[in-house]
Each structure stands twice: as C-alpha cells, then as structure tokens.
C-alpha cells in the first residue's frame, strides 16, 4: 500500500512531472480538520450573480503534458487536461470527501464489510463523439489496469480490485480482495474511457495508442481540440455535457518552460491563470496583480518538505543526533526567508489538512545550545576547525537536492549556514533530477542527506515511506526502521473504524516525530494567480482545475 505518497518535486520545476496526483488521487473520505483558507470575498460575494457564458481562459504551465489517458499518464500537466476531458465516477469536495457531485455516479453504496461497492451512474452521459456512456465503459475501463498486459503506471491503484461487474446498463459493482479504505477516494477517481473506441485495442498497445495523444475522447465538460507540442493544449466547451455546458467557451493550456517568463507573461496578460507561483515570487505577483487584473488565491498545499538522512550511515542511526540536527535548524527562519513566510513549520509527515493530522507530537524547536549538548553527549566533539569529530570522523554531510528547484537550493544553502553553528559541515550538491531519482533508487542509496518533498495522498497511511518492509524495494530510501511502529502501521491498515485508526496513526506520527525519521521542515502554502473577474473559483488543495466547469468570466 504505497499510494499515499508522492514525490513532490517542484512548483517551478522545468519538468513538473511529479507536481500533483492524477485526477484520481485527489479525494479523501473524511472532511479535513482544517479548512483555514477562506475563499476570497469576491468569489463568495458575487456568487449570486448569474454565471456568464463565454470566454477563453489561458492557463500557464512550465510543464508539458505527455498524453491524455489517465490510466497511462502520470504528470501534473496531463492530469490537468484529463480532468477537463474525462469524467470520473466520483468527485470530491473541498475537504476531500468523496462526493457524487462532479462525478458520473448518481448513487454509490458500500457494503458492510467494505468489500463491495455498487455504483449507479447517470443515464444521460455521452462521449464527445455522441456515443452514450454506460456500465460497459466503466467495466472496460477498470479492466484495463487489471490485465496482465497492462504496462501503465497506475497498476497499484487497482491492485485490490477482485472484479468489476456490470449489474445493469447503468450500474456497476466492484468487488475488492481486501478492505481498502482508500478505494472510493482514489480508485474511483479515474476517468472513464470509451469502450467503443478502445475496446478492440490490445491492452499491451494501449499505452502507445493514438487515442492518447491525437484523439482523446471522454465524456468530460470540455472537448479536446488541439495539442501543439511545446505550445499549448486547447479544449473547448462540450455543448452536450450531461451536467450542462461549461461556462467557459474554451481553455487554453499554455506551456511556458521558463518560470521567469511565465511571470512576465502573467504580468503582460498573456496568461490568465497560473497555479505554480513560487513563494518568494508571491509579493512580486501581488505587486502587479492589480495592474494586470489578477487576484491571488492561496491555501495550504497537501505536501511537506523534509531533510532526510541515509540511516545506513552509523552517525544517523543515532536518534539523538537526528533530534539534535532538528534542534539546530531554524525552520521558522527557513519559512520566513525561503518561502517568504508562506508556509508552516512541519513536525509530522502529514498535512494539517488531513483528518489524521496529530498536532500533539514531540517538537524539536530551534535551540542551538541544546543541539550542541546533545551532539556532545552523543560523542561528537568540536575539532580544530570547529567541525565536530567522533572517532576521527568529521561530521560532514553531503546534502543533495534536485536541480531546478530554487526553493530547495535555498534551503540547502541555509541549512549549511545554520548547521555550521553546531559544527556540522554541509556540502550542498545540486543534482540533475533524473540523476537524483537514480540516487535514491532501492539498492543504490547514493546520498548522505537529501532535501525533498512528499506530495501527500488523501489517505494518511504513512507505511509506504516509513515501514521497514519498504526499505528493500520501496520508498523508504532513508532506511528508517522502527519495529514498534511497523507493527502499528500494519494494524492501522486493517482498522476500519476511522476514530480508532486516527488514534493509531496519531501514535505513529508521535513515534516518527520522536525518532525524527526525517527532519520535517515545513508545509508550504500554495498560491494561484487568476483573473480578477474569474467567478466560481474554489481553492482545492489537490486540484487546480477543481470544478472548472463552473468557472466563468464576469464582464463589465
């Protein structure tokens, strides 16, 4: 069960392929505890106005989409487009609850044992080519990743499905192999593909089929019009959308690879909507927002940034050393300086937005003296050059992060400065992305320290990253291991009672914080620039295109 974790790479990365989850991975079962971000008054205040039809919205992106088939693509840009082209069975609300609203499901029922789900879909849904969408299409779609020929990237999302059956023309039944708390949230969020087009295509060839890039046909609110590689993707309103025509006439998804150029385009009005503003640039965007007819929306992102250490290295096996390092880092200063104050200091590997977030965990506040003492207690004594030494070994750590992410580069530089205070030498190493990924591959583990971020799923299961069994071939690349927590992690997955599970996860979070499995740095706040007159917009932490069907541009 590893579906909770996403490598969050960068908001301003050239290749923001890991930016966010697919359209299917964005929903949660339960209301989040905090929904602190108020919507802008403008959006709320004018909600009474009648939506106006028309207009083209230009959305900016540094990344290029790769294809428009949710079962095969996995980058943020593609999934942005897919959201508009396809309908999924279930939708989600702002608190990540699974809702039928925005999905094809009219009604959905889970069995007592949590092993079967029966879904009734709307009867008037039609694909863009006019063919009706019915249960056959749903069965067809869900059978694709179940096939042994399937070579796409989404296999793990469907692992628990035992079978998918058509009950009647508009009813489908899913049977699971075992209880899966995330099933309605994640697995039911994938777009439905047209059987009448893809039905004859061998599944092994589907990943390369023309449908994905040339003629994607879904049932979503927008129809695919044109993809000019490296320039833009254009989708136009689906006049016959079963849930009513979207307000916007068209959406142009414009690709501007250079993050600075994108801001210039935003200022010049060549881009209307951009969700990837780096935090340090927020004041700049604010400064020209008014003149450029823009406004900013923000909210906490469902992710966190951390400093991890390779715990195969003896010096990082010592819990107190890890704690001392956290003590030595002024995370508030990092948030203030690197993020322009736009984020929160993190203590656990879960977002405050999650229902399972446990605020009551051991915290290791900035305290240089304490850090020094703890390190001294652990046997690390300052050497002649002020750098700590133990048994002739210097406390010198090469900290890697990926090239192209300014914020992380900044963090590494500041870490170097801060840790010098306690006598730890940090050697920053900015590594090209593909090479960095290769460095943390299982069995390679070619790093000492690493600054990265995880984009969180909606389910709070932490085992994918911190369970001992995930070391050998999974994502636990730091090699963290705590048998007690392993046990808890196994147990919570079998727990169907949410409150009990929350308690168990809370304990795990306490354990991870106490162990400082990572040095958790912060939860970033995300900023999106959009036209002042864009109405119907709501900030969804995982979906920058949330309910785009309802967006509309108010004219004077």
């Amino acid at each position, binding site marked *: 069960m590893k579906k909770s*974790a996403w*490598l969050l790479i960068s908001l301003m990365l050239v290749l923001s*392929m890991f930016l966010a989850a697919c359209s299917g991975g964005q929903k949660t079962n339960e209301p989040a505890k905090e929904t602190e971000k108020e919507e802008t008054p403008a959006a709320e205040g004018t909600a009474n106005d009648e939506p106006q039809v028309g207009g083209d919205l230009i959305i900016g992106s540094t990344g290029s989409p790769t*294809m428009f088939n949710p079962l095969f693509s*996995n980058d943020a840009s593609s999934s942005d487009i897919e959201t508009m082209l396809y309908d999924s069975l279930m939708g989600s609300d702002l608190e990540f609850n699974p809702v039928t609203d925005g999905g094809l499901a009219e009604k959905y029922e889970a069995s007592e044992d949590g092993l079967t789900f029966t879904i009734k879909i709307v009867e008037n849904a039609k694909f863009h080519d006019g063919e009706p969408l019915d249960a056959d299409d749903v069965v067809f779609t869900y059978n694709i990743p179940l096939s042994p020929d399937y070579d796409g990237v989404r296999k793990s999302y469907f692992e628990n499905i035992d079978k998918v059956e058509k009950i009647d023309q508009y009813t489908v039944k899913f049977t699971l192999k075992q209880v899966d708390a995330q099933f309605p949230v994640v697995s039911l969020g994938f777009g439905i593909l047209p059987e009448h087009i893809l039905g004859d295509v061998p599944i092994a060839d589907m990943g390369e089929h023309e449908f994905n890039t040339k003629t994607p046909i879904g049932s979503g609110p927008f129809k695919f019009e044109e993809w*000019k590689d490296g320039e833009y993707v*254009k989708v136009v309103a689906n006049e016959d959308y079963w849930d009513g025509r979207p307000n916007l006439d068209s959406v142009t998804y414009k690709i501007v690879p250079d993050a600075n*150029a994108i801001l210039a385009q935003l*200022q010049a009005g060549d881009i209307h909507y951009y969700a990837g503003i780096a935090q340090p640039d927020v004041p700049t965007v604010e400064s020209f927002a008014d003149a450029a007819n823009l406004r900013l929306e923000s909210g906490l992102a469902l992710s966190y940034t951390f400093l991890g250490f390779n715990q195969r290295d003896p010096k990082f096996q010592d819990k107190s050393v890890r704690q001392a390092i956290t003590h030595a880092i002024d995370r508030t200063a990092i948030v203030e300086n690197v993020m322009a104050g736009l984020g929160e200091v993190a203590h656990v590997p879960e977002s405050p937005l999650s229902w399972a977030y446990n605020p009551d965990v051991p915290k290791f506040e900035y305290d240089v003296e304490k850090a020094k003492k703890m390190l001294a207690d652990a046997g690390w004594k300052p050497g002649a050059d002020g750098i700590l030494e133990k048994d002739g070994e210097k406390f010198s750590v090469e900290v890697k992060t990926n090239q192209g992410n300014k914020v992380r580069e900044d963090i590494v530089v500041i870490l170097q400065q801060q840790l010098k205070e306690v006598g730890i030498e940090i050697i920053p190493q900015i590594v090209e992305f593909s090479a960095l990924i*290769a460095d943390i591959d299982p069995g390679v583990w070619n790093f000492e320290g690493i600054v990265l971020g995880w984009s969180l799923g909606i389910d709070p299961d932490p085992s994918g990253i911190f369970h001992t069994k995930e070391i050998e071939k999974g994502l636990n690349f730091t090699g963290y291991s705590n048998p007690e927590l392993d046990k808890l992690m196994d147990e919570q997955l079998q727990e169907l009672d949410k409150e009990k599970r929350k308690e168990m996860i809370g304990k795990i979070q306490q354990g991870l914080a106490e162990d400082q499995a990572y040095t958790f740095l912060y939860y970033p706040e995300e900023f999106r620039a959009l036209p002042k007159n864009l109405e119907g917009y709501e900030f969804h932490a995982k979906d920058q295109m949330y309910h785009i069907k309802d967006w509309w541009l108010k004219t004077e």
Partner: protein
Amino acid sequence: MASYIFRRTLMAIPLLLGITILSFAIIKAAPGGPVSMLMDPTMKPSDREKFEEKYGLNDPVHVQYFKWLGNMVKGDFGNSLIKRGVPVSELIMNRLPNTLLLMVVSTLLAALIAIPFGIYSAMRPYSKLDYTVTVGSFLGIATPGFWFGLMLIMFFSVKFAWFPTGGVATLNAPFSIWDRIHHLILPAIVLATADMAALTRYTRSSMLDVLKQDYIRTALSKGFKEKKVVLKHGLRNGMIPIVTLFGLMLPSFIGGAAITEKIFAWPGIGSLFIDSAFQRDYPVIMALTVVSAIFVVIGNLLADILYAIFDPRIEY
C-alpha cells in the same frame, strides 16, 4: 556535382555511425532513465522491470544500440518513451520548422546588420567607426543570452508592451504573417546579437584580406570609384568565407537556440533537446543527435557547394 554530393553523402555514413555510437554510449552512461521520470513511484519494481523489458532498456547497451540502429536505418526513430506513442519523427517535425524559422530569421538579421558594418570597418580600419563596431560586436559576444532575453521581455514586452512575451503566435488568433513576425522579433534579436558579433568580425577580417589583394588595385587602376570596387570586386570575394561560415553555422541551429527558445516559450528543437535530456527520453535524444549530425553533414556540404558557387576556382 551530383556525383560529388553522392560521394560526400556516402562519406557521411561513418561519421553518422561514430556520432551515434558516441551519443548512445554517453546517454546510456548518464544516471537515471526514462522509467524514473515516467513511473509512478508507487509502482512495483516488477512492473518497472516489465516496462523496461518491453522497451529493451535492460538489454546490454550494444544490443540496444544495434536494435536502435536497425530501426533507424529503416527510417524508424521509434516512439517517445515519455510522450508514449508519439513517434519521435512527429515530435521533431512539429518543432523543426519553428527552430529553422527562428534561426534563419536571426541569421539573416545578423547578416543584414553585420555585413555592412564589417565591410565599412574593413574599408576604414582603425577609424572611429571601426572601433565602435569592434566594441559593439564584442559586447554582443559577451552578453549572456538568458539575461539579455529576460531583459528584453521585461522592457519591451511587459513594460512597453511593444512585443509579445513569447510563443510563436498569438493564441486563439487567426494566422497572420504580421503576428508571426511580431513574435519572432525579440527572440531573433537575442539570437542575432551573438551571431552578429561573430559575423562582423569575420566580415571585417575577410574584407581586410580581400581589399589588400592585387585585383582590387587592378580594379582601382581601371578608374572605378572605391565604393564600386569594394562592392563589385571586393564583396564577392570577401563573401566566400562568410558564405562558408553560414554552412558551418547550420548545425548550431539544432542546439544553439535552446536557452532562447526556453525563455521565449518558442517550441523548437533546442528546448525539446533539453527536455529530452532531462527526461532521458532516449529515442528523442538519439533522433535529435542524428538530425543534428545530418545538419552537420548538410552544413558542410552546403558550405562546399556555396564555396563552389561563389568561387569559380573550385570545381567538382
């Protein structure tokens, strides 16, 4: 001439082989692979292996190379591993015209400005104008393109709104020549700046050489005015090395504009190259290497042919 071109093309084969072998070795030596870019980290290693196996990424490098070579010879560059299913040739052909347009326009722009200045500099060496041109052209060489490009956008696109901020054409607007030109100007200026500098220097030294020649004196002794002598007798001779230079510049069309393309969101070959390199999209990288090598070969050939056209002394 035809047989000469044929022979030259034949001779390019070992060159192409060498280039592809070296490129293949280099990209395979680079850490990481398309799978780490493509794959969902939640994927099981067995599924990753399945994918790698499907695309032969686990075969020994030489096996992969020969497989690739075999397909390439058949004209099949394969499909992109990242934009799965999209033929590499299509990716390239979509962008090649943009890059060529940008490069041709910037080169022409550079030539139009550089050549007259170079000629004038050569006619009056060590004059004030010569010094100005010299300093100016060196300034052009020394300006980092990415800085210059962003500056132009900030001033001329954002501040004065004289030019678009990027792209090849206005979105959602009908095709118009003027619109295309409008979009071309800034990136072409950035690219032309560096070329202009080099071209001015070349023109100047080439013309200086030519103007020292005996036949210039002959032409003067016929009673022609200096301007006519320089333009009629000097220029054609002086252009021979310059024209050759254009041929040799052709290969730089492929990678040379990468930064400019990125800054101006110009969907060209350069940015495709950079993206593919970062994503380890091996088929695209290899295809672009081949395309670039072909450009080298064509460029050299073109240089030779132009040389022969401009210089009657060369015969094939």
